[in-house]
C-alpha cells in the first residue's frame, strides 16, 4: 500500500451524467481532474437507458441514454491527458481538518487524495417500502434490474410485478419487455400516473395494466419471490399476482453522506427527495472547496444533471484561476431554465427555491454567499 497522499486539482466524486460533464468541462478549461466511480464502469444511469431522451438538443435529446454516455466520454477523450478515471473506487471519507479524501478500490486497496476542489456528483440511491417479505430474494430495486438486463445482458426473471408508475417504473417496465420479460402489472398507490404519458402509453399499448390506487400488501414465497398480494386502496379488495420478481420503483434519495462529512450546510427538502446541500447558482456549497451536481443536489433527471455538472466543473476550474468564458454560465443557466420550465417541473422549482443561497434562477455572484 502506498501511504503517499495523491494530489488532484479537481476531484469529481461519481462518474455518472453529472460527474462526467463536470470532468469534461473542467478539463477543457485546463484543470487536471480525477474522477472516482464506485461502479465497474463509467456512465452512471445513462448506460442503462435504452430510450431516446427528451430535454433539449444541447443535452442530446433524441439520442438513446447509453449513447449519450459515449458522447460525453468522447468529449473527455479529447483532453485525456488532463483526466484520470478510476472505477470500482468508493470514496469512504472526507476529513475537513486537512481536506483529505480516503478511497477504497475494490474490496481491499486504499489510497488518499488531497484535492484542491471537489465536485460531488454522488447520485442517488433507491428507496424501499415496508411490506412483509420485502427482503426476499426477487424483490429488487428498479436500478438493479436495469443493471442486470441492460448492462450485463442477464434476464432478471420471467414475470415481473412493478411497484410505482413514475418515470422509472414506466421506463423499466418497457425495458423489461424489450428484454423479453413479461410484466404482470404496474402498481401505483396514487390516483394518477406520476411519469410522462408518452411512457405510460407505450406500456398500455402492449397490454400491461397500470393499476392506480393499488399497492403491494406482501411478497409471497418461502425463500424466493413466488408472487405478491396486491391491495386496492379504493375498496380494500386484495388479490394475488403471480410473479418471480417484484421490482421497486418507489423513488430515490440523494446520496449525501459525503456532503455531510464535508460540513456542507444541508437542508431537508421534500421536493428534492431528501437532504441536499445549500448552494449558490454555480452549484458551490457552503464548503468553499465543494460543489454539488446531479441527483446528489436533488432528485431530478439526467439532462439537468448534465448541465449542473457543466456549471460545477466550469466554476471549480475558474476558482483555481483557469481562464474561462464567463458567458458559458449564462448559456447553461438558460438551458436549465428551459429544462425546468414545464408544468411537471413545478415541484423541482419549488424545491430549488428553498436551497438557493443567493437566488437560484438569477442574481448569480461568483464569490459565494452574502
Amino acid at each position, binding site marked *: 500500500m502506498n501511504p503517499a497522499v495523491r494530489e488532484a486539482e479537481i476531484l469529481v466524486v461519481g462518474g455518472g451524467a453529472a460527474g462526467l460533464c463536470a470532468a469534461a468541462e473542467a478539463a477543457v478549461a485546463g484543470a487536471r481532474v480525477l474522477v472516482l466511480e*464506485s*461502479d*465497474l464502469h463509467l456512465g452512471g444511469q445513462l448506460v442503462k437507458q*435504452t430510450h431516446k431522451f427528451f430535454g433539449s438538443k444541447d443535452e442530446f435529446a433524441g439520442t*438513446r441514454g*447509453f449513447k449519450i454516455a459515449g458522447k460525453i466520454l468522447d468529449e473527455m477523450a479529447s483532453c485525456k491527458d488532463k483526466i484520470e478515471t478510476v472505477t*470500482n473506487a*468508493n470514496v469512504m471519507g472526507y476529513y475537513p481538518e486537512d481536506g483529505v479524501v480516503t478511497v477504497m478500490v*475494490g*474490496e*481491499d486497496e486504499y489510497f488518499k487524495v488531497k484535492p484542491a476542489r471537489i465536485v460531488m456528483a454522488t447520485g442517488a*440511491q*433507491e428507496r424501499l417500502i415496508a411490506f412483509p417479505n420485502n*427482503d*426476499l*430474494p*426477487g*424483490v*429488487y*430495486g428498479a*436500478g*438493479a434490474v436495469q*443493471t*442486470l*438486463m*441492460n448492462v*450485463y*445482458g*442477464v*434476464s*432478471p*426473471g*420471467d414475470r415481473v410485478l412493478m411497484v410505482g408508475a413514475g418515470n422509472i417504473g414506466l421506463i423499466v417496465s418497457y425495458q423489461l419487455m*424489450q*428484454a*423479453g420479460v413479461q410484466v404482470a402489472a404496474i402498481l401505483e398507490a396514487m390516483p394518477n400516473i406520476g411519469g410522462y404519458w408518452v411512457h405510460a402509453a407505450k406500456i398500455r399499448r402492449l397490454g400491461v395494466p397500470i393499476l392506480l390506487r393499488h399497492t403491494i400488501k406482501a411478497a409471497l414465497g418461502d*425463500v*424466493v419471490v413466488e408472487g405478491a398480494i396486491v391491495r386496492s386502496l379504493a375498496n380494500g379488495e386484495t388479490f394475488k399476482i403471480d410473479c418471480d420478481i417484484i421490482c421497486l420503483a418507489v423513488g430515490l434519495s440523494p*446520496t449525501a453522506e459525503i456532503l455531510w462529512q464535508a460540513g456542507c450546510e444541508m437542508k431537508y427538502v421534500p421536493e428534492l427527495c431528501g437532504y441536499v446541500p445549500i448552494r449558490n447558482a454555480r452549484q458551490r456549497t457552503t464548503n468553499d472547496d465543494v460543489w454539488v451536481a446531479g441527483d446528489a443536489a436533488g432528485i431530478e433527471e439526467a439532462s439537468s444533471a448534465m448541465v449542473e455538472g457543466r456549471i460545477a466543473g466550469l466554476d471549480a476550474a475558474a476558482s483555481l484561476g483557469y481562464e474561462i468564458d464567463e458567458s458559458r454560465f449564462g448559456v447553461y443557466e438558460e438551458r436549465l431554465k428551459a429544462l425546468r420550465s414545464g408544468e411537471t417541473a413545478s415541484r423541482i422549482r419549488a424545491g430549488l427555491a428553498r436551497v438557493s443561497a443567493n437566488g437560484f434562477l438569477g442574481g448569480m455572484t461568483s464569490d459565494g454567499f452574502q
Partner: protein
Amino acid sequence: MPLIERHPILDFKHDGKVEFTFDGKAMEGFEGEPIAAALHSNGVKIYRETPEMKRPRGFFCAIGKCSSCFMVVDGVPNVRTCVTPLRRGMAVLTQRGRGSVSIAEGEARR
C-alpha cells in the same frame, strides 16, 4: 435465469467465459461481470443468510450500497458481489451470519 440473446436496441457481447464455483459447484460466467450477475444467470438467487433471523438475502441495489449481496469470495466474507468483478477460478460461498476471518488468515493477507 437465462442470458438475453435477442434485444431490439442493445447488443450484448457475452465473451470471455470463465469457470468459477458456487458452494463447490462448477459454474460459468463472464470475466469482469459482477459476481452477482454471473450467479443470477446461473439461476442462483440466494446469496447469504442473515445472522439473527436466518432469512435468505439476494441481489437488491446493484450499486454496492445495501449489503444484501454479501458473500464469501476466496475466503473473504462480506464481499459486495454486485460490484466485484468475476475472475477465473473464484470460489464463491453463500455467507451465513456475519462472516469471520481468522487472525492467521488476516495476517496471511497483509
